[in-house]
């Protein structure tokens, strides 16, 4: 766990610098010892900073209700917290590999997503989880990417601003929302706080943040549907930014949203054709509609334009 190791090395280096400053000229052997120690630490830190960890690992450290000093942690809580975190990673990888997950049923798995407990962290009680594979590639493994994305998702859910969570919900698989709910419910029910450390991030969620995340996630429902009969006038499409605007034929409402990657790429071919008029035309489109329902707020729809099926007169 590179980040934790670096943290410890840097703390050690500060201690050694202080020792060197305190050890006077009257102790030449002490000076030699601490200078050598400092040199060793500098070398270890430099080597570790240059190391790219391509395999997934994450430290989950808990404090609060389920933790007893730094001695022990409720077995029941620990089991639930680790299981729900594993669920999030598994579903993230599956969503990445298979697209939108079914509403229920077994989560498909191509890439193994299992994390193993490598080490226990004392101080505050915690676990270092690591994937079992040995990765000699330079590229990050799917598990490493999934851990990073899950950590971002957890932080966004607990963020002080609503905007961060709203942005996260727009792309969150509905089954991941369920696991996120389970994760925060487990923490909040036990009055736990958590610090999550992984390669790119080090986030601490206190009890208040955990409660905030739980309430937000519990108050949010997401339902995805697809239709290939959404009719409207295409007002504009930005292929680089992958954004569109359309005036719906039936209601006159102007909707805006994202453009699927495949359509964005095809757009460049379409606009190359001479006399091809696309904007300002009436289209039958294929659209994914995500309905987000949040307590005490009107439901909102997010649109993803998947395809232009046929031009309409």
């Amino acid at each position: 766990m590179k980040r934790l190791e670096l943290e410890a090395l840097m703390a050690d280096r500060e201690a050694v610098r202080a020792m060197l400053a305190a050890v006077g000229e009257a102790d030449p052997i002490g000076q030699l010892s601490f200078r050598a120690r400092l040199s060793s630490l500098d070398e270890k830190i430099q080597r570790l900073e240059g190391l790219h960890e391509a395999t997934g690992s994450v430290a989950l450290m808990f404090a609060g209700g389920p933790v007893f000093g730094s001695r022990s942690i409720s077995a029941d809580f620990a089991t639930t917290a680790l299981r729900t975190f594993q669920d999030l990673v598994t579903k993230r990888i599956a969503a990445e590999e298979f697209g939108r997950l079914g509403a229920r049923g077994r989560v498909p798995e191509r890439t193994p997503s299992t994390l193993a407990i490598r080490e226990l962290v004392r101080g505050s009680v915690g676990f270092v989880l690591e994937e079992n594979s040995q990765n000699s590639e330079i590229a990050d493994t799917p598990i490493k990417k999934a851990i990073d994305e899950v950590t971002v998702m957890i932080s966004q859910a607990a963020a002080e601003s609503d905007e961060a969570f709203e942005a996260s919900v727009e792309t969150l698989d509905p089954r991941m929302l369920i696991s996120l709910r389970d994760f925060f419910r487990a923490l909040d029910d036990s009055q736990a706080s958590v610090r999550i450390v992984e390669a790119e991030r080090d986030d601490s969620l206190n009890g208040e943040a955990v409660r905030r995340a739980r309430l937000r996630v519990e108050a949010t429902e997401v339902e995805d549907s697809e239709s290939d009969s959404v009719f409207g006038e295409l007002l504009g499409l930005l292929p680089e930014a992958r954004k569109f605007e359309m005036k719906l034929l039936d209601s006159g409402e102007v909707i805006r949203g994202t453009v699927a990657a495949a359509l964005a790429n095809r757009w460049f071919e379409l606009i190359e054709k001479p006399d091809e008029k696309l904007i300002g035309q009436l289209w039958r489109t294929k659209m994914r509609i995500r309905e987000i329902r949040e307590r005490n707020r009107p439901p909102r729809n997010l649109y993803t334009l998947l395809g232009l099926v046929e031009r309409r007169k």
Partner: protein
Amino acid sequence: MIPAFNLSGALPPYVGPSPVDPAGLSPYDTSMKELAEALGTSADRAAILRGFIALRQSLLALGIDNGYQWCAGSFCEDVEALEGRSPGDIDVVTFFVRPPHATDQAVWAGFVSANAALFDAIQTKAAFRCDAYFVDANTPLPSVITQVTYWHGLFGHRRSSQLWKGILRVPLISDDAEALKHLDRVWP
């Protein structure tokens, strides 16, 4: 006495039912022969121990014979099982009283300078397979306590997990010859 490694692959911080009994607390007093028998379990480890014995002999030759050494680091853990590798060296902290002929500050400074190869961890690592550090008991007590606290904090815990682990203590004068005989017999 060298206790067996615990489930974490480290020397336990104490043996017995609780850490209250000083007789069961780390650092554990041992001898060079016992160290060789308990932890000289491979050719690599035997080579490190031979280096350690050579360092000790060099210190004795300089008159540094009053004190003891802590042994720690991956040599004192089941690093073969934990990380699938042999230890690279042995971590040693030597607590000593200056030889009678070198107690004068100016003489001591010259003595250290002249024998820096034995007191500089970078050089002892290369020459003796020992990451060797020293605490001079002739320096003022507050400085000694601070240094002992640092080294115990470092070697008494695993860095990232903060696991509490045990250390071994060997007097500067011990049964090194017996230890060498054991190593020569088992790992010629």
